[in-house]
């Protein structure tokens, strides 16, 4: 058209769309009319409005043309495409079983793929919504001690950040976050335990995007009495009342006025919180320059400057920090120097595996695994499609012949069969979106996430559609080319080209078996390890065992509280303790405190220390191997565990003497060891059992927690009865209790969840593979019907025929097993089981199960198909020659 497009011309895109959908005659008419309307609108309503109306009209014209009007106004290629779809639809209806297998396989594959993509995308999105997330770095501290080295995300004193930022100009600003421990918050008659308290400073809102709902964040974080709460917390305490200006009572004494309500933090942030308090106020309360109060430190640093800052921090550490931080102190103690690390904020969720993270982290390894499984499922589904389409090609050969005879080019045929593939993908995609609406709630429950299709970002949706498009082209292209290559004459006679197809088919099927078997082995190993963890004897009986935090609440009532609980008919026994399993205080004992050990100067032995009361061992269901239990609360002595005995190398520990840690200046007399406990896991089974010593006190001295063993009957009413006793004896604090087995299982929630997810997707993949084998075996039988008919006529039995068909699958299974077994073995051993201290040995039967299971399943599916042979009438297949 050559003429210069004026600025006021209608949108080019609209014209292009019209051009590709309308025949020439009609196009010119539509262009004229729409152009004139556009010019009119341009004058009356402005450019944008005119352009929008133009696009709307373009779509309207096309819509009416295709669904209400006449196809003669559409160009040929579109008409052909429409015809292709009609033909595909007819074929779809003609061979229902085949179409169903294909559709189900693709739908399952696509659904699994989309689900996994949603999951992975969510995991990858952590903390990327903050404006400046790329320059926010979290400071962590790696410290070395004689018991090992640990990197901590938290234990930095909060005063470190100002010191660093004064000396290092590259640090643009800092923001610190302190944790507030479990707190009772009271408003009116509402009283709850809250764990989501954080101390923050003004820069918190510069660093992180947590939108404000009402109130203000300006300067309020200097006010020691201010509290900022989330929407859901506001709802919990104030219902529909305006929370601003209301006063909450924290821990029965501190009054805080609500100054702002914030939106709940989204799920994809590490910085979860329920309420915020002033960090500067906290800092003032705690005196001394180098406070021991730990916090999290976030620094804004240009990513290019990281290396520079890193070395500068090291200098500052040696010059301006207290001596305990410096390299020389560490070296004088024979330890590696400690150092500070910087981690990009967005990396923390998946890539950080250090101690005391601010919230539960994910694991990048699982992201890799799930991405791989998702892609594999999609590939299996598309391989299925390719195989099934190849199988159908025999039936379609005549159709190809006729099309070619009346002048269809190869390109047109390829287009026809590709559009058919596309139709399948489209239908399956539609089905999987429907399926998703149904499955997502379950999936969310399983993953503890709130995923939804609606929240998908456009770029993510585009990526997913792109992958699906590529996969559908890949799975359709080979059958399309294969079919279009058939010679016209041969096709009309019903012949198909011989070679090529067969080799590809073998490769594809071996590949499928490889994936299926790898997944079976890995799943079995995963499940065995997880059930091993859950059923392992951990040295105490965690069933029907509860604990109640009582620290500082009982005052003088500890005796009455315990007696009343013991008097309940369904309570077996109860005891007070200072520590719960897992939080025993680690104490360093100089070596010369243990009888018979040489003092080696500075070296200490670290052990866990438990302060308990009468009946503790019995209540917990722990086993004494040697010696006896404490007689009563005034008994002086230690009970130690096997791990400590091993560590000390004592042959006969009973009666040997340990000097208690000097407390202040009081020198305490040494105490004998009176018993040895069987090792119990006081921490996650991912870590080893640590040395432990246990002493006994009177209830009046130790009453931080009450542990109680219940009878299995009426647990609910027993707990309710304990609650009533609590209300009577304590009253002004909510009753709180935890079952030990819940607490135990919680440690493995992540693993159990991943295990379940993996199991589901692996079964899906295996299911889709079986569908594929069904399709393929029908292909094989179909293709060799003539051969089988001759065999049958010559007297072959059904059994012999089935053997022939099954043989085609035997070698691919064996071959793929030879690859799958080592692949799964090394992955499970080196990548996954590594992270557990207590792990299963990989058993041969896992592998046997995989290969035998695959063989059996294949045999069943294939035999079902070859059963057709029995009914087949040979004359039908031999007649044409």
């Amino acid at each position: 058209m050559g003429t210069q497009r004026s600025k006021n011309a209608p949108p080019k895109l609209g014209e292009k769309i019209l051009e590709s959908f309308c025949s020439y005659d009609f196009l010119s008419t539509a262009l004229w009319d729409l152009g004139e309307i556009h010019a009119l609108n341009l004058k009356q309503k402005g450019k944008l409005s005119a352009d929008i109306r133009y696009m709307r009209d373009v779509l309207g014209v096309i819509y009416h043309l295709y669904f209400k009007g006449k196809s003669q106004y559409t160009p040929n290629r579109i008409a052909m495409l429409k015809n292709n779809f009609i033909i595909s639809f007819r074929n779809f209806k003609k061979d229902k079983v085949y179409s169903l297998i294909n559709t189900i396989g693709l739908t399952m594959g696509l659904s699994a793929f989309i689900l996994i993509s949603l999951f992975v995308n969510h995991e990858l999105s952590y903390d990327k919504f903050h404006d400046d997330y790329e320059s926010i770095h979290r400071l962590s501290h790696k410290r070395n001690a004689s018991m090992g080295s640990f990197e901590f995300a938290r234990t930095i004193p909060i005063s470190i950040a100002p010191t660093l930022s004064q000396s290092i100009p590259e640090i643009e600003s800092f923001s610190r976050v302190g944790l507030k421990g479990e707190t009772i918050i009271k408003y009116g008659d509402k009283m709850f335990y809250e764990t989501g308290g954080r101390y923050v400073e003004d820069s918190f809102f510069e660093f992180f995007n947590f939108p404000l709902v009402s109130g203000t964040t300006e300067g309020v974080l200097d006010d020691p009495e201010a509290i900022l709460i989330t929407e859901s917390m506001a709802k919990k305490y104030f219902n529909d009342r305006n929370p601003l200006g209301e006063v909450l009572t924290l821990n029965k004494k501190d009054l805080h006025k609500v100054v702002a309500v914030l939106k709940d933090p989204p799920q994809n942030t590490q910085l979860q919180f329920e309420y915020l308090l002033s960090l500067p106020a906290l800092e003032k309360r705690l005196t001394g320059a180098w406070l021991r109060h730990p916090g999290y430190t976030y620094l804004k640093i240009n990513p290019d400057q990281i290396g520079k800052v890193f070395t500068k921090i090291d200098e500052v550490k040696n010059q301006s920090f207290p001596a305990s931080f410096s390299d020389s102190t560490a070296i004088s103690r024979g330890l590696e120097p400690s150092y500070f690390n910087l981690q990009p904020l967005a990396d923390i969720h998946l890539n950080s595996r250090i101690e005391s993270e601010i919230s539960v982290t994910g694991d990048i390894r699982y992201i890799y695994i799930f991405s791989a499984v998702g892609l594999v499922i999609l590939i299996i589904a598309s391989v299925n499609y390719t195989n099934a389409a190849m199988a159908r090609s025999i039936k379609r050969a005549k159709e190809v012949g006729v099309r070619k005879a009346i002048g269809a080019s190869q390109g047109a045929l390829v287009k026809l069969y590709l559009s058919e593939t596309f139709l399948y993908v489209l239908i399956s995609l539609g089905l999987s979106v429907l399926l998703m609406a149904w499955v997502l709630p379950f999936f969310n429950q399983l993953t503890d996430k709130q995923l939804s299709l609606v929240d998908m970002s456009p770029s993510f949706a585009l990526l997913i559609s792109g992958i699906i498009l590529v996969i559908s082209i890949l799975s359709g292209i080979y059958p399309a080319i294969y079919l279009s290559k058939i010679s016209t004459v041969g096709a009309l006679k019903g012949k198909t080209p011989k070679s090529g197809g067969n080799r590809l088919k073998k490769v594809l099927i071996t590949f499928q078996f490889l994936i299926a078997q790898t997944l079976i082995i890995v799943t079995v190993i995963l499940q065995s390890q997880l059930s091993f963890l859950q059923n392992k004897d951990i040295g105490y009986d965690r069933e029907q065992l509860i604990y109640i935090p009582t620290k500082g609440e009982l005052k003088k009532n500890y005796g009455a509280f315990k007696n009343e609980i013991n008097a309940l008919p369904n309570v077996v026994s109860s005891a007070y303790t200072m520590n719960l399993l897992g939080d025993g205080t680690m104490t360093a004992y100089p070596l010369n405190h243990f009888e018979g050990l040489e003092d080696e100067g500075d070296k200490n032995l670290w052990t866990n220390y438990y302060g308990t009361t009468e009946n503790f061992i019995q209540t917990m269901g722990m086993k004494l191997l040697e010696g006896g239990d404490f007689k009563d609360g005034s008994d002086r002595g230690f009970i130690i565990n096997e791990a400590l005995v091993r560590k000390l190398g004592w042959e006969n520990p009973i009666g040997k003497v340990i000097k208690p840690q000097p407390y202040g200046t009081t020198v305490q007399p040494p105490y004998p060891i009176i018993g040895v406990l069987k090792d119990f896991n006081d921490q996650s089974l991912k870590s080893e059992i640590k040395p432990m010593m246990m002493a006994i006190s009177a209830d009046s001295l130790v009453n931080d927690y009450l542990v109680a063993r219940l009878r299995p009957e009426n647990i609910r009413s027993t707990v309710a009865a304990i609650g009533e006793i609590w209300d009577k004896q304590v009253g002004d604090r909510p009753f709180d209790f935890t079952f030990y087995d819940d607490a135990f299982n919680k440690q493995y929630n992540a693993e159990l969840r991943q295990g379940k997810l993996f199991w589901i997707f692996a079964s899906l993949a295996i299911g889709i593979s079986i569908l594929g084998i069904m399709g393929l075996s029908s292909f094989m039988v179909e293709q060799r019907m003539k051969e089988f008919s001759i065999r049958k006529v010559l007297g072959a039995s059904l059994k012999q025929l089935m053997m022939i068909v099954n043989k085609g699958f035997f070698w691919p299974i064996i071959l793929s097993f030879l690859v799958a077994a080592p692949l799964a073995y090394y992955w499970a051993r080196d990548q996954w089981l590594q992270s557990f201290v207590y792990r299963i040995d990989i058993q041969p039967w896992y592998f046997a199960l995989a290969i035998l299971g695959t063989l059996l399943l294949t045999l069943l599916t294939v035999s079902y198909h070859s059963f057709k042979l029995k009914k087949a009438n040979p004359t039908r297949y031999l007649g044409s020659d």
Partner: protein
Amino acid sequence: MKKMTLGAFEEIVLLTVGALNENAYGVTIKVELESNLKKSISIGALYAALQRLEEKGWVNSRVGGITEKQGGRRKQYYDITKQGVLALHEVKAMRNELFHRLPATKIQWLKS
């Protein structure tokens, strides 16, 4: 051959084409319709209606207004045919006949 029916929208389009006489093409028909019906008309729906009318032989189309400036675009003018007028007349007659059969008491309402 099955009897050709004249839908309500088709009827009003056909009338408009007839009323615009020599100057009936996409835009003028649309504008005229919109001012009479007092609502917005989709040009796509209009094309579909015109195509159906043309198929039934109630309108003829001719091409006009091809200019170099318009870059191969053209106006497609529509004229009502004799059959078209007959069809309109038939519908109108039927309506009139039915209308006249309305009870006199109800016709009264128009006058008040």
